[in-house]
């Protein structure tokens, strides 16, 4: 495979000779631009998230409070209640009930 190696080397040398190679300052400039772009993108994403969060919170705060539902807890007696006859009632009058029988 030394033939392959030689052919690869020849082709690579030819390409390196023909190719456009800018100075190192071009790579440095491009690197800085790329970093600025990345930092700018990240910063705008953070700002966007903060704005969205603030807007969301504002909307939630200004929303009218929903009507509270009626309490569902029932007032079940916890102990048996006894209705006492007031002490003032001392006399019991028997009812005079008349019964009319119908036609037989």
């Amino acid at each position, binding site marked *: 495979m030394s033939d392959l*190696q030689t052919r690869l080397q020849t082709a690579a040398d030819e*390409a*390196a000779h023909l*190719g456009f*190679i*800018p100075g190192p300052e071009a790579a440095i400039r491009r690197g800085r631009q790329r970093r600025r772009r990345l930092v700018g993108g990240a910063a705008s994403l953070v700002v966007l998230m903060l704005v969205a969060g603030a807007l969301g919170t504002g909307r939630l705060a200004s929303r009218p409070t929903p009507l509270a539902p009626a309490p569902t807890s029932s007032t079940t007696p916890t102990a048996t209640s006894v209705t006492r006859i007031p002490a003032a009632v001392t006399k019991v009058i028997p009812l005079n009930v008349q019964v009319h029988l119908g036609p037989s």
Partner: protein
Amino acid sequence: MTASGSFEEFYTGAVSRLLGQLFLVTGDLHEAEEVVQEAFARASVRWSWLRDYNAPEAWVRRVAMNLAADRARKLRRQARAILRMGPPPATHEVSVETLALVEALGTLPVRQRQVIVLHHLVGLPVEEVAQTLRMPAGTVKSLLSRGRRALAARLGEAEEVGDRP
């Protein structure tokens, strides 16, 4: 191979070598220039710690190889865009032998091209190729074997065709 010097020195020493290697992987000189420039741009902003690496050139090469593989995946979309844009710009004039080699390499999948270039041109052992491309050594061996076989067949065919009167 530490590069304790300036980025400019490192760049000047390595850029043409990497351009040649990436040309054989991408098959296109403009594409190789773009990929190598992007890799060096990324290296330039990390130079403060990259300079202490044993082989910063290997780092740049790996980034460039990954970029080349990413771009190869997008090739179909790019090809459609290029077709819409019209004829391609004038290409650099390379020799017939180089053109045949690049065409034969272009028929291989990008991973096979990468292992062939890294192993046979850069001279990395199989383990280092595996490290560079983040794949098992067995896969590298298999890719190398298949790639070499396919390349030999393609180049053999091309030469047979060329030899015919």
